[in-house]
Each structure stands twice: as C-alpha cells, then as structure tokens.
C-alpha cells in the first residue's frame, strides 16, 4: 500500500479508504507511489493529470467499484467528482459507508 508519508485527508474518509483510493490511482494511472502519496484534498485530477482521459476515468470507476465492492451510478458522475482528489475521496467514502 501507500508509504507512511501520505498526506492525510482525514476530514472526509478513514485512513484505510484514503490509502486504498491512492493505490487505485497509482495502479490504474501508472503513477508513482511518491506522486500519489503527495496528493492532498486540493490536488487537481481530471483535466490536470494527462493520464486521466475519459477511458481512464471509466477504468478508474470500475476499479473503485471492484476494490470497494460498491456500485457507482453513472448519473452521479460529473466533472466535480473528479475535479480534485478530495472530491473523489469524499464521493468514494460516502458510498463505502
């Protein structure tokens, strides 16, 4: 999983959810562990990461569903959910319960 240096986003999710979401971003987008550990709530994703095109977003959502055992309704996905790491984490945490 992510090394201990990850910047926590405790306001919206448990450390475990945070770690697992960072690992998914790392695996799906081929980012380094250091890069994803450096994400904070305000880190921009969609539109800022060249790796994150629409096919990658689709893959990312599927991977989040698989690894967290949740179902994401596509109508819930809009630009805001993917705008920042904090928004994606809050979205995921709300569905993990």
């Amino acid at each position, binding site marked *: 999983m992510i090394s201990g240096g990850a910047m926590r986003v405790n306001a919206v999710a448990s450390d475990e959810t945070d770690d697992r979401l960072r690992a998914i971003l790392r*695996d*799906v*987008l*081929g980012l380094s562990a250091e890069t994803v550990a450096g994400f904070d709530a305000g880190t921009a994703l969609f539109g800022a990461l060249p790796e*994150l095109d*629409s*096919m990658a977003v689709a*893959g990312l959502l*599927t991977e989040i569903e698989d690894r967290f055992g949740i179902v994401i309704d596509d*109508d819930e996905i809009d630009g805001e959910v993917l705008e920042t790491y904090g928004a994606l984490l809050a979205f995921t945490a709300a569905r993990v319960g």
Partner: protein
Amino acid sequence: MDFRATWTCPGPDGLTDEHAVAFDRGRQRRVLIVPALFEEQNRTRRLLVETMRRLDAAGIDSFLPDLPGCNESPQDLARQSLHSWRQAMADAARQLGANAVLAVRGGALVLPAHLPGQVLEPVAGATLLRQLLRARVLAAREAGDHASIDALLDQGRERGLVLAGYRLAPAMIAGLESALPAHEGQRTILLAELGGGAAPWSRAEPGESAQQSTALARIVAA
C-alpha cells in the same frame, strides 16, 4: 523461427488469412492464447508476449492469434460478433495444432472450451461493455452533451456504436450484454497469483512486470 504464424477463418469474401504471434518449434505442448478484448487486448499484449518467451524457454510452443478485425487482421471489426470470434478461435486452435488454451479476461467469452488450460481473471461481457459505454458517456459530458448509458445502449442494439474507437456491430453489443465466461474445467488464475502488482488490463498507461509474466508462464507450464 519467425515469431509468426498464419491461420485462416471465414471472412466476407471467403477464407481470410489471419496473423498470430507464434513461438513454434514443433514441440509437443502447444498453447493457444486467446487475448483480452478491445483496449484490454493492447494493455495485456506485452504481458502475454513476455509470457510466451518464457514458455518457449520452458520448452512449450505458444500462439497468440489476432481476433478478426483487431491488430493485423484484414477483416472489418464492425462485422464481427462474439460468435464469429469464438468460431475464429476454434479455427485457430485446430489449424495451429493447439492442445491447451490460456484465455485472458474477455478472451474467456470466446475460448475453445474443449481444450484444457487456464483462464486469467475472466470477465463478463456486460462488465466490459459497461466500461466502454462509461468512457463514451464521460467524454460526451466533457463536451457538454448529456448522453445516458441506456440511450446509447438502445442505439447500439439497433445500429451499432463506436466505443473507445472500436466500431461495434449490433450483434457484438448484444453478445457482450449477455455473454458470460465460457470456461469449463479450465483453471481460473487470479491476479493475486501473479505475485502482486497492478492489473495490466486496467492500467490506463502502459507498463509491464517481469514478475507477472514469469508467474503466469510458471502456472501455464505446470
């Protein structure tokens, strides 16, 4: 050895030559690798070719055919269906003299089920289709167009759809909606058995893992 083999399958104008990556030294064990589908086919190609090199070193011949309409195939993807791919993989297995199979992800939807072997993380057609539809909907929303998956699917069933650059016929869409992995008796290999690391088929960026190829070859060779 020239690393490739040719096999034929029915096309719109009669029998058509198709390509396969081949490590063929006329040995006794001959494995047909049925690739993953669509984008996952590209993402897993390096894993599979590296696995084939290791099988070659272990004394096992292997073949990785193109699905008609993909890669080097002269055929039109828009005329393919899961049925035509299943038929093609059966033709390839017979002509290449395969006596074992390794199907990867959506390859399990079209594998020659009579051959012994393995399936790597088989996936339902609906799961693959949903991901392709999702990408299309997200791209449309980015462009300010509020398409829905259901509306797209209706359109696909009637007239076909271009998804992630792949032109899919109504028959392909219908097939994907309902197809389940068709393995019977082949051993299911889980990603976790490949020694950890990310799933190559879900990576949006290219990457490779020698460890995964080595582990996969070891399981196939066992």
